[in-house]
């Protein structure tokens, strides 16, 4: 089988292996690591993770599809994940989502044609006292308002 994952992936995994009583417990860490390298989890990457863990590919897909953070479809360079749960909703998250959809010209859940942005709705991000909140890739952006959202989008556009 052609290898898609790098030595870095296998190195990180062999460091983690002794920390668990069995290899199956490495499924979540392996999927995180694979996604970090690949951006998303195409079929061939899932297959390689399955081979590494020593389980059927279906088992990996079963797990990966349960968790929202594993991207089973490609995502844009910057993944904007807006929380629209209660605390954020009470402080204007719906307006932010509407603004983001207009500004990016996509609906929630879609990726811009240039591949720069994916816009998603997120369930509670656990930062409710600084609502509204979003994640831009791995970073939290707290006390978000339309101005800050606009600036962040413009910044990504200029950095392309």
């Amino acid at each position, binding site marked *: 089988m052609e290898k898609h994952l790098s030595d870095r992936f296998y190195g990180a995994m062999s460091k983690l292996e002794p920390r*668990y009583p069995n290899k199956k417990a490495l499924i979540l860490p392996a*999927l995180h690591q694979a996604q970090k390298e690949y951006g998303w989890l195409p079929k061939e990457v899932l297959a390689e993770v399955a081979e590494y863990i020593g389980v059927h590919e279906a088992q990996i897909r079963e797990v990966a599809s349960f*968790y929202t953070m594993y991207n089973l479809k490609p995502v844009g360079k910057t993944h904007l994940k807006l929380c629209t749960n209660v605390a954020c909703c009470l402080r204007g998250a719906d307006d932010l989502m509407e603004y983001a959809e207009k500004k990016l010209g996509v609906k929630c859940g879609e990726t811009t044609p240039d591949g720069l942005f994916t816009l998603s709705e*997120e369930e509670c991000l656990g930062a409710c006292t600084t*609502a509204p909140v979003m994640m831009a890739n791995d970073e939290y952006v707290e006390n978000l308002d339309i101005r800050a959202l606009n600036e962040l989008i413009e910044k990504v556009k200029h950095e392309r």
Partner: protein
Amino acid sequence: MSAETQTLFVQHFWNDSNRTLDYYVKRMNGYESAKKVIATMTPDQVIEEVKKANIRGRGGAGFPMGMKWGFIPKNSEKPKYLVCNADESEPGTCKDRQIIRYTPHLLIEGLIIGSYAIGCHHSYVYIRGEYVREAELLNAAIEEAYKNGYLGKNVFGSGFDLDITVHRGAGAYICGEETGLLNSLEGKRGEPRVKPPFPAVSGAFSCPTAVNNVESIANVPHIIRLGGEEFAKLGKIDKSGGTRLISLSGHVNKPGVYEALAGSMTVRQIIEDFGGGVWKGKRLKAVIPGGSSSPVLTADEIDVVYDVEPLMKIGTMMGSAAVMVIDEDTDMVKLLLRITKFYAHESCGQCTPCREGCHWMESILHKILHGEAKPSDIDLLVDVAGNIGGKTLCALGDAAAMPVQSFVKKFRSEFEAYVKGQKSHA
């Protein structure tokens, strides 16, 4: 500092440099409790001290922590595990994140003491996947602890061995449920297990396991430092020792994570003294007192003491101590739809009442909001909720049913206005 204003955590929640081992050792008596425990106490004595402290679990269920540790079998041939639940995801809750960001060593020291008490040599911290930076900070602190001989082989030169591994979740509310969490730790879908067996008998990797919330574990060094009885006395109400971290969000002037002696404040005082009152000079309509699953309170009900039993007496719950404040302009039908949509999205799908019921409730609420419902649909909604609560393997079913039942009961006229066509969704 007088006993009346004593806090154990929040005074450290402000500066990034407070998270270092240096700060922890110099300013917070860092690792002295763990050293004392390992050098001078037996595991049973530690558990006794935690029992005396009257500390209730801080994750939501409020189960007495000492009792939980006491359930772990003493003579087990299998390894035993202490698993820390850092999957903070009940909407409204964000206190554990502060502990990890500013006082990660408090959590590590708590894990050392807890592991010693139950006989664990490898502890896992299951942290929600979105807390990427927090996981990094915690790992950095763990590394500091290893370097100083506080973790690894022969902790403090005592002969006791302990490793800690941070395990990241990947976006699933249900993994905050302890058996869902354990399945996820084992590399499975985070579906809750059938109980019994309880984790104390068969938990992580089929071994005896205690699962405790971050704030619960981070309180353990304080319990040892103050002594169980003194810690218990911090609480101003029976059966609740220590302080409570309160995540205050929504329509208040000063949202934030605050700390109060357990049972020392009413909901009104929390909103006014901590939150600076309802924002924009508006009037209060409602309060969700313990995370989005807890039954809602009206503005007339907020003189209740904020603790487990007083809240239970008036039909709601303290949960994870997440207070969400709702002003007079809020549309309760719309808000309930948002809450219900969350539970429908997060239902793991194992139990039919929850999997199907949550979607039905969402769909009925959608119809009500968009003027497509009949008056009888309000009762249908409550009926569906009644057929979920108590009929599922885990508490997610109840969590989804309770907001529906309480919103309709207390704000029925708002639902009726929609079905009678007096109000329509803009």
